């Protein structure tokens, strides 16, 4: 692909990629560097794009993974063992989802700033971008049960952080 055609892709997707990077990192300067690297990575891997998914989905998968890798390296994040036993979709977890979506926007913003980047990423994928389970599986390269488990744990930890930050709230 020539650079002029790639510039068209940049113009079409750069705002959304940049905004995702800001959402994931909460740091505009870092988001700028990440956006640069993500487009460079996309250019160098264009041959691997197999057109089975939309280009945007493929690019956002690179975005999520690159942001997560960078944040993990920065925080020397230890990848947790994923318990493949799925316990999501239980009544208790549905209650957690309702509580999460019932937060005030400012409170949620505060909670997301304080939780682990991995938890933040899966919550943004699910509730901000409304990715399907399959798209999340593709983006994170994990099984369906692992996605469900990550979501359930992220919700639990977000609610625990909410309780810690706002002990007087219901």
């Amino acid at each position, binding site marked *: 692909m020539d*650079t002029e055609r*790639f*510039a068209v892709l*940049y*113009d079409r997707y*750069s*705002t959304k*990629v*940049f*905004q*995702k990077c*800001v*959402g994931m990192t909460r740091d*505009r300067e870092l*988001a*700028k560097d990440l*956006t*640069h690297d993500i*487009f*460079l990575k996309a*250019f*160098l891997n264009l041959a691997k794009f197999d057109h089975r998914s939309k280009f945007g989905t493929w690019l956002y998968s690179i975005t999520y993974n690159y942001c997560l890798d960078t944040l993990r390296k920065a925080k020397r994040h230890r990848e947790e063992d994923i318990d493949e036993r799925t316990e999501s979709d239980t009544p208790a977890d549905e209650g957690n989802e309702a509580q999460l*979506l019932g*937060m*005030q*926007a400012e409170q*949620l*913003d505060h909670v*997301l700033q304080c939780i682990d980047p991995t938890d933040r990423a899966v*919550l*943004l994928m699910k*509730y*901000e971008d409304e990715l399907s389970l399959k798209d999340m599986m593709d983006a994170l390269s994990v099984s369906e049960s692992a996605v469900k488990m990550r979501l359930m744990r992220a919700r639990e930890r977000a609610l625990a952080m909410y309780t810690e930050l706002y002990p007087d709230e219901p």
Partner: protein
Amino acid sequence: MSDNPFKLIRSTDQPPETLRKEVMSSVKFAMLLMRFAQLFVADLSVAIFDKVRRSGDDKPTTRDNPPSPHGS
């Protein structure tokens, strides 16, 4: 869902204007490096092929030395 607080806190920041120029400059540089690398890789593969290939002016072919039916 309009009440979804995740939608309310979504970033609306625009990427800096300078970023486009920086990305395209890096992409052009990467493309230059790829073409440069391809030049050597192409020559190298031709050279290796010449050394390893079975057919050719001065190489015996498998037709000249057919494999034994018992594999020895």
